[in-house]
């Protein structure tokens, strides 16, 4: 059986959904060890066990930037135990730690995978050209192999296992590679979390001006939906980055995604095209977003959205 190590990070005292997705997949591939980054607690470790983890290496960098010391510590463990495969998410700390680890050990990294298999050698699948093509990749030579998987590539499902054995790993002093986290800023959010919402209403540059994002918010409110955005309007400062959907933002897979004034650029599509039902409103009949839409309305967001909001509010009220 393959020895598979999965990086898993803590948020709000529990493993993130990304980590749990990766653990669920890893169970299919072999015996699972978690590389757990966070404060750690019996409850969090029990959750890991529930997802099939038999052993946990726990890293708590405190207010030091995690990547340097955690990559160094994992590198030592990898040298000692030689796992077959290390799986990370395409997340922030994941990328930092996987990158440093791979450079330290001279390992090739497969990024942006949407599927992974191991049968002696590793093979991964990647969506390219906005998800219109699938590439299959491999690494020649012996492992360990390092793979970064996009969020929402696999469902997270508990397996019901006992609590794992936990080893707290002491972090080495990385000297000149050290950095400190001296503060943390959390952006205000209303409504459900974007990544987990059943319905997402998203806006793009076609809204015309920052105030028009209120139309998106109004529709979202009546549906109990989260709001999302394209990078165009995040970069323009209309909405915070935390709302960005796509390649460099969040990946979402809601039951319904409503795209308002969004062209459907490749980098946006990869973040939302696997939504169950996609509705798009765009005044350009040639907009690429229509190629993934179940229902496409060729029209002006300033006309369609107010009427939609009214109709939904009327239903909710009556």
């Amino acid at each position, binding site marked *: 059986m393959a020895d598979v190590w999965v990086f898993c990070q803590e948020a709000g005292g529990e493993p993130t959904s990304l980590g749990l997705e990766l653990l669920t997949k890893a169970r299919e591939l072999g015996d699972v060890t978690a590389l757990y980054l966070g404060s750690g607690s019996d409850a969090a470790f029990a959750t890991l066990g529930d997802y099939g983890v038999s052993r946990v290496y726990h890293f708590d960098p405190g207010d030091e930037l995690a990547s340097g010391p955690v990559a160094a510590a994992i590198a030592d463990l990898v040298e000692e135990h030689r796992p077959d495969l290390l799986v990370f998410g395409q997340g922030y700390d994941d*990328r930092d730690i996987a990158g440093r680890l791979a450079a330290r050990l001279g390992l*090739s990294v497969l*990024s942006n995978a949407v599927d992974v298999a191991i049968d002696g050698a590793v093979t991964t699948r990647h969506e390219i050209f906005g998800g219109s093509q699938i590439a299959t990749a491999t690494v020649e030579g012996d492992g360990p192999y390092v793979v970064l998987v996009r969020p929402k590539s696999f469902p997270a499902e508990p397996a019901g296992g006992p609590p794992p054995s936990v080893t707290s790993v002491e972090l080495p002093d990385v000297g000149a590679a050290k950095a400190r986290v*001296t503060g943390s800023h959390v952006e205000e959010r209303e409504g459900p979390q974007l990544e987990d919402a059943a319905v997402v209403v998203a806006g793009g540059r076609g809204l015309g001006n920052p105030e028009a994002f209120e139309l998106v918010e109004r529709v979202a409110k009546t549906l109990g939906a989260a709001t999302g955005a394209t990078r165009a309007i995040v970069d323009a400062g209309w909405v915070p980055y935390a709302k960005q959907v796509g390649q*460099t933002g969040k990946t979402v897979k809601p039951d319904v995604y409503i795209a308002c004034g969004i062209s459907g650029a490749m980098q946006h599509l990869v973040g939302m095209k696997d939504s169950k039902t996609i509705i798009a409103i765009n005044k350009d009949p040639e907009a690429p977003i229509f190629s993934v839409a179940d229902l496409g309305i060729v029209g002006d967001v300033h006309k*369609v959205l107010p009427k*939609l909001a009214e109709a939904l509010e009327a239903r909710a009220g009556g």
Partner: protein
Amino acid sequence: MQVVVCAKQIPDPATPYELEPDTHLLVRPTEQILDDTDRYGVEMGLQLAQASEGTVTLVSMGPAGNMQGIRQALAMGADKAVIVDDPSLRGSDALTTARVLAEVIKREGFDLVIAGTESTDGYSGVVPQMVAELLGVPALTYATAVTAGDGSVTIHRQTAAGYDIVEADLPAVVSVTAGVVEPRYPTFKGIMEAKKKPVETLSVSDLGLEPDIRQKVVSVEPAPERQAGEIVEDDGEAYLRIVELLEKVKVI
């Protein structure tokens, strides 16, 4: 302050990308542009260097072509460029790329290295972190704001929920997000001056490296197509179609 900016030349994303049939490598035309991601890095580098009477050196790997992308960054104000162009680097993975960039950066000397968070054509998103590890310095990543001076650097590091404030002593690597600063457009004077700026082209043997590219794309196939949906022209009542569909999928 001596600033090195990693800048990649890529095929214009406004043109359709093509793969070579046998190798599945991206076809790279002679004329490539500066990756938009790296325009932000170049601008950030220029601002930090100008504040400290420093210099900006561009480091790039890949087919040099007619160097239009590199000239673009020089025209913005960078002082010089080093480009590593070698047929044996075709199809480089992130690690090979990082090894080449780190080797050049070591030779040039640096206080601060700036890169983008992910390239538009490769988007592995790990090259800056690898470069930092190879140089033995911290990687301050996903920066939405950067200040540097007095031997240290501080950034706002984007997180899923907002941002963290991260600081480190120089030398360091910083990766910047789009929007960290507003990139300037080259002036006519800048474009003329860029033609005279030094551009050094190196091969891997100049660097004493032997590329060991272990990653390979074995096949590419079309993704399963989504079933074509219905397109309706708004006649003032199209919102009702949305309501109907929301009912049908039981969201309302």
